């Protein structure tokens, strides 16, 4: 990290009214991931692992831990950015039911690959976080839900849990204190919607990953109808460091409303894609140019998807104004989301990109709500027309209309997550759409379109038999 090497070397005179002194930062969550055997207990113990848990379990009052995390201002790293301490304090008390912790390691948001590194290379960090969190919220049973495709991650996490169990950190009477904890690792099986918290809970309960209507929120009635806290892998891992070093330490980085540090996943047309852990509030330009090494082959920036595929896209001008914190992105009409930054260069066909995006949401909609199930389908179909240079008169308006009618009308926000990118593309790249509206006879178009899109018995083949966007031509034979 550039910051780490040149601590306070450049005290840039910030114009803001109360400039925060720039505190040097070096990676915290990812500090050890490149060391050999970093996933083993021996390695973790050698760098002071489980000391924090040992110091607090059965000693600190759980309420104090919640307050500590609340004071630190930690916000959820899974997407919504909800303050973690606040979420914990909403937990229904005195219900007589067991309390569960469900850790969200589904990581299905396209463009995000941060939890993978924690799970594969530093799983004990997560396990310690789970121990501390469960103690704080009074839970005796934690579920860690991993996406089914994380094969190595599952093996390593499961091994880590077993190692911790053998040491007496997990199980009955952990650390010799009067506290029990079971950690169950659950594997998903390839459904994006199981990243949505209630969808994930449905999946853990042994059903299809159907989200449930909120309220009641999981903190009141979640897993098996019991109060449940859902947090992302990165959030829970950060808890260890916050409990260890205190809230003030965490607040020395970041902005007032987004304190701390976060892992960003950089992909797309940059020279050095990868994961970068940085303090919140650095500029997007710094992320792309300093950490990402700038754009490949001297290409020009066209757009950036700042927080996973669901985040509305930013144009090059917006990128200049953007800093990586929750407020700045919200003010630009986008969101920090899960921290998956994808850089699109001039060569990317935005229509192709949006068609690919819509195909994703159509495929991943769970199908419970009509606006989402049908809306994502129509967005895909209409985007498909544009993708084949065959937009109809009025299709631009149609896309906007469908997207508008999907928002805020469904059980979970997947419908919004699909509509938001579409609306932002329509807003910023309207010309690209208009250029693809042709004026040939409508009937003829409709026929060709139907031939292409209507699934016949033959084309209802396994997942993803259709053409993917951004690759016109090469797959035509597959239909």
């Amino acid at each position, binding site marked *: 990290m550039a910051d780490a090497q040149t601590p306070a070397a450049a005290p840039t005179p910030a114009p803001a009214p109360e400039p925060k002194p720039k505190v040097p930062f070096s990676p915290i969550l990812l500090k050890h991931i490149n060391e050999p055997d970093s996933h083993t207990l021996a390695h973790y113990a050698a760098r002071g692992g489980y000391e924090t848990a040992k110091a607090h379990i059965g000693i600190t009052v759980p309420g104090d831990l919640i307050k500590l995390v609340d004071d630190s201002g930690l916000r959820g790293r899974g997407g919504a950015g909800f303050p973690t301490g606040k979420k914990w304090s909403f937990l229904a008390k005195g219900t007589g039911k067991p309390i569960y912790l469900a850790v969200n390691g589904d990581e*299905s*948001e*396209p*463009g*995000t*690959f941060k*939890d*993978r590194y924690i799970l594969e290379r530093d799983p004990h960090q997560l396990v310690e976080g789970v121990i501390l969190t469960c103690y704080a919220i009074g839970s005796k049973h934690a579920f860690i839900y991993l*996406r089914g*495709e*994380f*094969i*190595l991650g599952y093996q390593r996490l499961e091994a880590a849990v077993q190692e911790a169990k053998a040491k007496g950190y997990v199980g009955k009477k952990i650390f010799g204190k009067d506290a029990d904890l*079971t950690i*169950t690792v*659950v*594997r*998903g*099986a*390839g*459904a*994006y919607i199981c990243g949505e918290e209630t969808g994930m809970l449905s*999946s*853990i*309960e*042994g*059903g*299809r*990953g159907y989200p449930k209507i909120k309220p009641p929120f999981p903190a009141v009635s979640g897993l*098996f109808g019991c109060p449940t806290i859902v947090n992302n892998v990165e959030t829970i891992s950060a808890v260890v460091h916050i409990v260890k070093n205190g809230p003030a330490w965490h607040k020395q980085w970041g902005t007032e409303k987004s304190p701390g540090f976060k892992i960003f*996943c950089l*992909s*797309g047309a940059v020279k050095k*894609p*990868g*994961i970068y852990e940085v303090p919140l509030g650095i500029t997007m330009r710094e992320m792309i140019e300093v950490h990402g090494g700038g754009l490949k082959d001297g290409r020009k920036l066209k757009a950036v*998807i700042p927080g996973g*595929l669901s985040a509305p896209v930013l144009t090059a001008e917006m990128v200049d104004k953007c800093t990586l914190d929750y407020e700045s992105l919200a003010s630009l009409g986008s969101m920090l989301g899960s921290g*998956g930054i*994808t850089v*699109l260069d001039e060569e990317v066909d935005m229509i192709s*990109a949006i068609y*690919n*995006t819509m195909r*994703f949401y159509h495929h*991943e909609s769970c199908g419970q709500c009509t606006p989402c199930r049908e809306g994502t389908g129509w967005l895909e179909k209409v985007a498909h027309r544009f993708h084949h240079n065959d937009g109809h008169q009025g299709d631009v308006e149609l896309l906007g209309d469908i997207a508008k009618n999907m928002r805020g009308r469904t059980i979970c926000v997947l419908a919004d997550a699909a509509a938001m990118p579409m609306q932002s593309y329509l807003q910023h790249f309207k010309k690209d759409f208009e250029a693809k509206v042709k004026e040939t006879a409508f009937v003829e178009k409709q026929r060709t379109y139907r031939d292409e899109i209507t699934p016949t018995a033959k084309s*209802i*083949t*396994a*997942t*993803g*038999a259709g053409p*993917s*966007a*951004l*690759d016109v031509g*090469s*797959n035509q*034979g*597959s239909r």
Partner: protein
Amino acid sequence: MSPQSTTAHRTEFSPERMAKFHEYAEEYPNKRSALMMVLRLAEEEFGSITDEAMEIVAGLCNVSVAHVQGMVTFYTHFKRPFHGKHRFMVCATLMCALEKNTDAALDQIKARLGIAPGQRTHDGLFSCEKVECLADCDKPPVVQCDNEHFCSMKGAVLDQYLDKLLKEEGKSAAEYKAKSPVDMDPRVPTLPAHYNFPGETETGARKTENKDPYLKAGEGALTTNVPGPLATPFTVPVADGVNAKGAPSNNRPGHDSAGNFSNPASNGKHGAKHG
């Protein structure tokens, strides 16, 4: 597939997997909630989630077969019988599709194995499909096959891997060029004939004095050979009392050699109960 499963209809997992199941059953608040993991056991045991496996899972987790079928068709990552033995999953989401990375991988697979996404080779050894984001977006294209995860999987690396698999199977690219592939059909096959519907007699035959407009007189008789109800987990409750060590699985005499429902041959011995 274990050799056993190809010879007889099975109603239980192997002892090791049953032990694993009991581990799960203890850990989860109820058996239904262990479904995701038990389906993984089934996948390991049978190589893919066959109808037979679904019945076993339903029995173990105290849910209906329909529920299990609903799960298996919802989650795309479970391996199903229509998939090839080596199942290529190529990420086709935006981050991988940029710069035609997805296409590069798909083209190479097609060149060696002759299969496009959604297809399987004629011998069922290889299949290819496009999947959504596999969470390794900085190193496209991302491909998974045989429980292995590969990133930057194109060019020489992918070709070498394909060649390795071909060699392992004793196959050649030329063979797959010559024989056309099959489209995979993820739809659940029609229910096996030995299921009893209302109106069917115990042996599975429809009553001949049928009022069913779709059956012409006399047709009912043709179905009398349909095997009777199987001793599925419905009839052999495999719930709490299951022997924890896991008894050796019962071989069903007289069941079709495929060991599943795809070919319920008209063989009268199927009614035999056991367990």
